């Protein structure tokens, strides 16, 4: 659809209630005026209006939304978000869910985060060695950000050029602490990944303890937009800041590990589909073979689309002679849902061309058939209504020059004048004479045109285009004609058959159209389902992406030892596994 994707952002004031208009006073103040009540005010009347409905959840919107999230470079916004980040709680939750690093931490513990959001404040600052203007600022909640007083810029995400200095700083502080109280890590500054690698060598228990304390400092800062996203996904419902941003329908459960694989999603979809009362074909559970019969719906072919578009053109009463540009500028057809059955403007234009050509041909044929209908008939009808012996021809012409019958180009003025004069002359004749003339005229008309089934509204043009027909007043004339028609015999047979054929053709056309409309409905449903599937895929992809990002992050936390530490970790893991296997074996032995 050609609908604007523009969505008003949050800081735009709510729309004015109907009737109110916004104006600027000469002083520059904005004021509001209500035309109905003649009331004007400086305060915006829309304030009491109900808030706009939450944004519709379509995949594109959610995309835009996510692409705009990292406003965390703005400390104020980041503060608001991170202030809910309670270190104590985090520690507690981590100790429950921490089996090895990474994984899916942070999904569930954030759900029960306290609602009140105290404001985080900077507490202490340290100059970063090697990058002179930069300062590392620690906040009340133990978070930190890099601050450049020269540019007055601060970043939660520590910039890469400063990163080296920060690392150095951390290493120093850890060394200091290690010197001060060896092994005591319960109250320590969070160690970075490098110190952890050292700790691996020290002992397993200590490492675990350290890890339970908190994720590394870098992680806490660097993960922020990722976390932000998760947070919104996971618990968009319970924070007040972004009530309209909830996109996900799957709420992660509290006690389960929140890994979403295909099965889970498929299961949820099925559940949702059942909830909404959809057929399996409508939400596409992945195995079309298992659908019940007929779930796929009627096919909607290209030909049907073209025909539907032609129906649209017919229904809107488009003038086939008008240029295409005018049709588009008018924009009436664009509102119609059938406008989108054709995907491209070129296709639409092609169909329109085809339609207009055919339509013009039809009109021409119709006109050729109607050509028998004399242009004289409307003119004579006008004469019967308006002409009177009191008006001379020039007066009559001037008075009624706006009438379409008078403007018709196919009649010449000379003829018009002649008929007018004749008509006026005949009006002076005695009524008996006029009646006789009418009877003579009726007798002249062959039985094919005038018979006992012909109606007053549908008299032959030969009769209508005669001056003798209009010279009598309709009140006198119509009963006469009716009486005469009743005395006539039935019409010859030939006409009947043709009429029957015509109705048959019309019926067929109607039926075809009904079929097309049904197919269109089916297609719309199919499109909706496709959209739903795409949204699901996007969500799934996003989950996979987050997972990958997390993996990459984990992989990135290789310290200075580089490959060696990786290998060590690997060895450690293997040893653990072996130990586990040994224990199992032991357990087995005991059982035996």
């Amino acid at each position: 659809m050609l609908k604007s994707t523009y969505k008003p952002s949050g800081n735009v004031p709510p729309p004015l209630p109907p009737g109110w208009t916004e104006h600027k006073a000469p002083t520059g103040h904005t004021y509001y005026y209500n035309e109905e009540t003649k009331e004007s005010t400086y305060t915006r009347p829309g304030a009491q209006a109900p808030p706009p409905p939450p944004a519709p959840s379509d995949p594109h919107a959610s995309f835009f939304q996510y692409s705009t999230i990292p406003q965390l470079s703005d400390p104020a916004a980041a503060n608001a978000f991170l202030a809910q980040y309670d270190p104590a709680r985090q520690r507690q939750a981590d100790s429950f869910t921490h089996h090895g690093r990474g994984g899916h931490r942070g999904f569930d513990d954030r759900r029960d985060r306290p609602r009140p959001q105290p404001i985080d404040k900077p507490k202490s600052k340290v100059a970063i060695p090697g990058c002179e203007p930069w300062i590392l600022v620690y906040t009340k909640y133990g978070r930190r950000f890099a601050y450049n007083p020269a540019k007055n810029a601060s970043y939660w995400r520590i910039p890469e050029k400063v990163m080296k200095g920060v690392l150095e700083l951390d290493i120093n502080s850890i060394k200091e602490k290690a010197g001060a109280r060896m092994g005591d890590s319960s109250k320590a500054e969070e160690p970075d990944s490098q110190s952890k690698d050292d700790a691996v060598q020290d002992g397993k228990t200590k490492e675990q303890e350290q890890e339970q304390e908190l994720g590394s400092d870098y992680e806490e800062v660097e993960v922020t937009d990722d976390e932000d996203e998760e947070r919104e996904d996971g618990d968009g419902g319970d924070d007040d800041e972004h009530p309209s941003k909830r996109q996900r329908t799957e709420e992660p459960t509290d006690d389960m590990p929140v890994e979403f694989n295909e099965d889970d999603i498929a299961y949820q979809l099925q559940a949702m589909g059942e909830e909404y009362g959809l057929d399996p074909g409508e939400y596409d559970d992945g195995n079309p073979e298992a659908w019940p019969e007929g779930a796929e719906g009627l096919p909607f072919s290209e030909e049907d689309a073209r025909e539907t578009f032609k129906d649209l053109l017919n229904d809107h009463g488009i003038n086939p002679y008008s240029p295409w540009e005018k049709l588009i500028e008018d924009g009436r057809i664009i509102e119609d849902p059938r406008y989108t059955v054709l995907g491209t403007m070129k296709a639409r234009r092609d169909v329109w061309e085809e339609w207009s050509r055919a339509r013009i041909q039809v009109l021409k044929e119709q006109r050729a058939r109607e050509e028998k209908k004399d242009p004289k008939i409307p003119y004579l009808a006008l004469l019967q209504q308006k002409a009177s012996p009191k008006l001379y021809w020039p007066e009559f012409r001037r008075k009624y020059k706006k009438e379409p019958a008078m403007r018709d180009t196919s009649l010449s003025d000379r003829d018009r004048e002649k008929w007018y004069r004749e008509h006026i002359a005949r009006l002076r004749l005695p009524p008996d004479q006029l009646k006789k003339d009418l009877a003579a005229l009726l007798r002249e008309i062959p039985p094919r045109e005038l018979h006992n089934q012909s109606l007053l509204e549908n008299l032959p043009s030969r009769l209508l285009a005669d001056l003798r027909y209009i010279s009598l007043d309709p009140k006198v004339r119509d009963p006469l004609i009716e009486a005469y028609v009743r005395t006539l015999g039935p019409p010859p047979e030939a006409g009947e058959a043709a009429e029957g054929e015509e109705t048959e053709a019309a019926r067929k056309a109607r039926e075809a159209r009904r079929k097309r409309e049904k197919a269109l409905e089916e297609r719309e449903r199919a499109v909706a389902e496709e959209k739903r599937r795409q949204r699901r895929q996007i969500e799934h992809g996003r989950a996979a992406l987050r997972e990958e990002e997390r993996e990459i992050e984990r992989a990135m936390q290789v310290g200075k030892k580089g490959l060696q530490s990786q290998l060590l970790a690997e060895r450690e893991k293997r040893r653990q596994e072996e130990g586990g296997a040994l224990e199992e074996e032991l357990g087995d032995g005991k059982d035996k």
Partner: protein
Amino acid sequence: MPAIRTHASRQKKPPAGFDDISDDLEIFAIKMKDAQNTPTNNVPKHQAQWPIFQIAHQRSRYVYELYYEKEAISRQLYEWLLKNGYADAMLIAKWKKQGYEKLCCLRCIQTKETNFQSTCICRVPKAQLKDEQDVQCVSCGCRGCASSD
């Protein structure tokens, strides 16, 4: 003494079928009149006549399509329209030639009026233009009228 040619004698009444298209032609006439009457004070000099050219092109195209593509009007009416200035016969004559099917205006193929004896930039196919530039020709504001576009 030669016969005095009155207004009426010069204006023959239009052939049948004119009623169908007279509304659209009137719309074009109104548009043209508006374009002629808009002040061009703050418009660059070379752009002042662009709307005139564009409307003339649209109207000619309308008549051309009615007669040659849709076959909606009779030959008499078509000729009457040409004679009465509703369409540009010279432009339509070009449209019938291969390679000129979409020509925007006659000035754009007038090679003698240019410095290097070449046609206008709008005659260059989009595919041959370097790096997707958005051109508008000087004479009529055309954005490209090559047949392959």
